[in-house]
């Protein structure tokens, strides 16, 4: 006696997420093949964050961002990291604080300005909440506030459906060169997908202004690094 077994075509639509371009959103269908490939790429982000098997990782995101973050969950599972999730909303700031207090986190990935706003509403000091977390990967807006609190966050960036992370504060966020090309065109960052993808992107605008560094990074990791304005 068993439930139905449904076979899927790995090239068919697995899910439909979205990415932001400035104030607008672009629907982004993706396949199982995309998710698997992106998950392998996200293991590179975990390498940058120094996440090893058994480490606790908190991912702060929104469900609408699943196209980018579902692969990241998969990377954590493949790595054997212990995964926790919180919404990037002011209400879930108490959840973020609770996880930081209880779990001995190695990294918080995707820290959002909304979380910091929620901590302010709670009267909580980010310097206290995050002081024991070795790696804070923060989105623009959140990064600046954490720096002002005396912390050393690294930049965490979403470029379309791609995720990027600094190897060290100030190095620029690494994007996986096997999957993505990035350029600054009239100051706007544009990405192009490489390899087969259900929804290929060609010079897709991101709504972000910034610079691209292509030279070698001191960490030795190849590929472009992005610094938003």
């Amino acid at each position, binding site marked *: *006696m*068993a*439930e*139905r077994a*449904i*076979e*899927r075509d790995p090239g*068919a*639509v*697995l*899910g*439909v*997420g*979205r990415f932001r371009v400035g104030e607008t*959103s672009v*629907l982004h*269908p993706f396949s*199982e093949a995309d998710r698997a490939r992106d998950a392998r790429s996200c293991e590179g982000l975990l390498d940058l964050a120094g996440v090893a098997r*058994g480490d*606790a990782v908190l*991912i702060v*995101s*929104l*469900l*609408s*961002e*699943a*196209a980018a*973050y*579902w692969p990241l*969950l*998969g990377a954590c*599972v493949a790595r054997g990291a*212990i*995964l*926790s*999730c*919180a*919404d*990037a*909303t002011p*209400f*879930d700031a*108490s*959840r973020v604080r*609770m*996880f930081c207090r*209880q*779990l001995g986190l190695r990294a918080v990935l995707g820290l959002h300005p909304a979380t910091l706003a929620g901590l302010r509403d709670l009267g909580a000091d980010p310097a206290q909440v995050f002081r024991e977390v070795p790696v804070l990967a923060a989105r623009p807006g959140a990064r600046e506030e954490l720096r002002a609190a005396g912390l050393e966050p690294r930049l965490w960036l979403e470029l379309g459906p791609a995720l990027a992370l600094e190897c060290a504060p100030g190095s620029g966020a690494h994007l996986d060169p096997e999957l993505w090309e990035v350029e600054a065109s009239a100051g706007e960052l544009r990405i192009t997908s490489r390899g087969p993808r259900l929804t290929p992107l060609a010079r897709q605008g991101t709504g972000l202004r910034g610079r691209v560094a292509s030279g070698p990074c001191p960490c030795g990791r190849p590929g472009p690094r992005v610094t938003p304005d």
Partner: protein
Amino acid sequence: MSQADRTFDPVETLPRPELEALQEQRLLALLPYAFERSGLVRETWQAAGVHPREIRSLADFRERVPFVDKDAIRRYRDRHGDPYGGVLCVDPGELTAVMSTSGTTGDPTLVAERWEGEVSGGLGLARDFWEIGVRPGDYLTCMLFTFRGPFFAQFTAIGAAPVFFDHHPDEFRRWCEASLALRPTAQYTLSGPLVAALQQLEPRLPFDLKDVFSSYRGIVFAGEPLGRAARRKAEEWGIKFHLQTSLGDVGAATECREHDGCHAWEDTALVEHLEPEGAAPVADGERGELVVTSLANHTMPLVRYRSDDLVRLTRRRCGCGRTHARIWPLGRKGDEVLVAGRGILPVDVWEAVEAIPETSAGLFQIIRTQRECDALRLRVGFAGEGAPPRGLAERVAASVFQRVGVEPRVELVPQGELLRLGPPHKIPRVAKQ
């Protein structure tokens, strides 16, 4: 649609004797394991003088096994410094994830998980949405949060493609566009606050909501009871809501297309329905407390956990053909307030508040300073900002008195103030002040 096509898993229609035999088999395998590995189970059973070797049947279990509740878990947590409250049965290094409860009424509590691949939480949702009519190749909109982990993997298990939205009114325009473009079959979820927000937004949207909803065979409504106002709105929009309610802290139960109670998957949990202040079972269909034991969770199994949830329950076979228990949520035991000898739960007040146009969103709280109060005090949210309309408090009070027989003292606040108190899908229904 044949009955065979209606179910995702044959266990859903297992005859009761076979279902109970399956439960007993799983229970008797779980108990020695939990006794050995769960500090809370061992401590509780030793205090009661009970050992797993004495439990050889469901009957033995019902007669002898002691209860635990949330307070017992918190006390264990505080005494031992154990963030899992003595319930974790595996080495923390074996975990895939540590998620948490919603945290509506306090700090969220930890929920440790081991996944099979990237699927968490079994396939209960797969069964629920197969019943609603989702089939391979369909789109299914998800309007929820991330803190429960990748629940959406259950939809890919039935071959559907989730379309992702945040549980926030700001998403509605984008959601309308995607619904018209992709024609999804179902949605997980909508909540009272979102229905109220969509209702307010409707005149300003450049879409006909009946058209937007026309492809949806069903929408799961979760977070709180489904009030009459929300059901009426659903009829206007041409949609069918399927209420989903928590099954203690071991899972969820969802209405089938008969809309006559929420199915609890009894192959995954032993469900008891007991007197709220005792251990005797309550008659089928009557009000009792939901007490649950995990049968399919060996990571953090709850054993004879008193949920504090008051429900009606039946084990009569449903019109859909399923044989698993159905429950109707009534409220939390700890939320009941006694006024002039009358027990009042939020669900008793709900329709009375919804019946008044300015408070039709049904956003309210009972102010419960202690269990017995000399008056029923309500904080009620009205649509709009600033000062409430004159006479509104009196109209709300009269509506409540007509239904409950107790005249309340009504404090009116703008709806937004109440919505800020909780997670996006519900508000705390009882407040201490």
